[in-house]
């Protein structure tokens, strides 16, 4: 890591923006400017960003690049705002834009994003709305009609202190976030009040994203260990329930610790637990 940081510091000292393509999967620091592929031709040897005049103006094809978390548009370039590794995803389908760039950063504090599935704790009931704490800067609001099969006569059985698994329908920086427990067809689809018992604990956001990747090894190994129910919230909260309290605590400790363990250490721990 020290070697990578030295390289990053050198390029920052040079004052020249680097091409995004050359920095993929490397650590980038806030304040760095990245060039998109279409601007690299302009930054030729000794070029100061001046583009050569072309006689046929229609030749340059403009590619639309999506700027993900950790990056902001700054003129024609991308400005890095968070520390982390730069990632890129190719455009899927037939020529749909120029792909997505984003910074994989590690955080503990959650910021609500539309469409994210999160675990919230009901903190207050006021009139027709529940106030749900999702770990962000303000509590989200959840209408009592936003449950499957709920009508004005048939209210859902939600008390203060209950755990709710839902998704955001409104989540931007200017408005209070709103969540619902039904999908666009009106079905619960696994959302709603989370049942009795179990344990809720908090982990970093990066670990949640790692555990939710398809074919995650950690999850497959944990599943072979004990029969369990598990719910992941994108706000860093995990709810887990096993047959006995001891098994639940073991699972919670494993999931919290697996962020800092290598694959070998994890296999050792799992084999030891499977024996006992």
């Amino acid at each position: 890591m020290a070697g990578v940081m030295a390289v990053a510091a050198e390029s920052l000292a040079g004052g020249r923006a680097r091409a995004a393509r050359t920095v993929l999967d490397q650590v980038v620091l806030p304040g760095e400017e990245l060039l998109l592929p279409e601007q690299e031709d302009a930054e030729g040897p000794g070029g100061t960003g001046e583009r050569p005049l072309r006689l046929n103006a229609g030749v340059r094809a403009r590619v639309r690049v999506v700027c993900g978390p950790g990056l902001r548009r700054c003129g024609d370039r991308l400005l890095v705002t968070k520390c982390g590794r730069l990632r890129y995803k190719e455009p899927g389908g037939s020529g749909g834009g120029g792909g997505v760039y984003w910074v994989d950063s590690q955080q503990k504090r959650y910021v609500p994003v539309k469409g994210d599935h999160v675990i919230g704790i009901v903190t207050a009931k006021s009139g027709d709305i529940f106030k749900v704490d999702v770990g962000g800067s303000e509590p989200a609001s959840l209408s009592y009609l936003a449950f499957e099969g709920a009508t004005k006569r048939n209210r859902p059985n939600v008390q203060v202190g209950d755990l709710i698994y839902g998704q955001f329908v409104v989540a931007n920086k200017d408005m209070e976030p709103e969540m619902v427990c039904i999908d666009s067809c009106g079905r619960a689809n696994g959302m709603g009040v989370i049942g009795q018992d179990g344990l809720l604990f908090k982990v970093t956001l990066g670990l949640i994203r790692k555990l939710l990747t398809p074919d995650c090894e950690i999850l497959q190994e944990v599943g072979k260990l004990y029969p369990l129910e598990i719910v992941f919230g994108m706000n860093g909260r995990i709810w887990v329930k096993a047959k006995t309290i001891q098994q639940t605590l073991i699972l919670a400790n494993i999931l919290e610790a697996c962020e800092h363990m290598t694959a070998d250490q994890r296999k050792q721990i799992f084999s030891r637990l499977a024996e006992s």
Partner: protein
Amino acid sequence: MEGVMQTDAKMRTESGAESSPRAPGCSLRHFACEQNLLSRPDGSASFLQGDTSVLAGVYGPAEVKVSKEIFNKATLEVILRPKIGLPGVAEKSRERLIRNTCEAVVLGALHPRTSITVVLQVVSDAGSLLACCLNAACMALVDAGVPMRALFCGVTCALDSEGTLVLDPTAKQEKCGTEAADVHHQGALLGC
């Protein structure tokens, strides 16, 4: 970013030997930084410059009281606690300087009506405290994932009685100017 990040910019050959004169090319003391050492704050960092050490914790973007909220950007608060005693006027002025620096760099417009709090605790003071506080605050903000438009740092400079510039002075070097008849200047340089 978790883990230890140790940047070893040891330009002095002997670290800790404060009585011997430094190399004429102006050098800094050995400095080191560790991130993510506290479990409660969203971001934390410990910055060490020679024997001066400051611990910083960042909470945010979090809830803010209605009286303190700003409608279009985040409210930034800096709290500096000295090693002994209650915080006084000197701490308040340092807090203000650190807050102005952080406000210039943090993209507060992305999180309106929230608060970002930086808490700094002086663990040991052996000269150039303000620069160490600034560096610790920057590393803690980076660890918390607060969006920033640049990184910032600080270095304390001192002019001794002969007029030579000393970077990163120790407590003794900061004090010895007051005894001399010549004017002794001290300031913190900020670089982006």
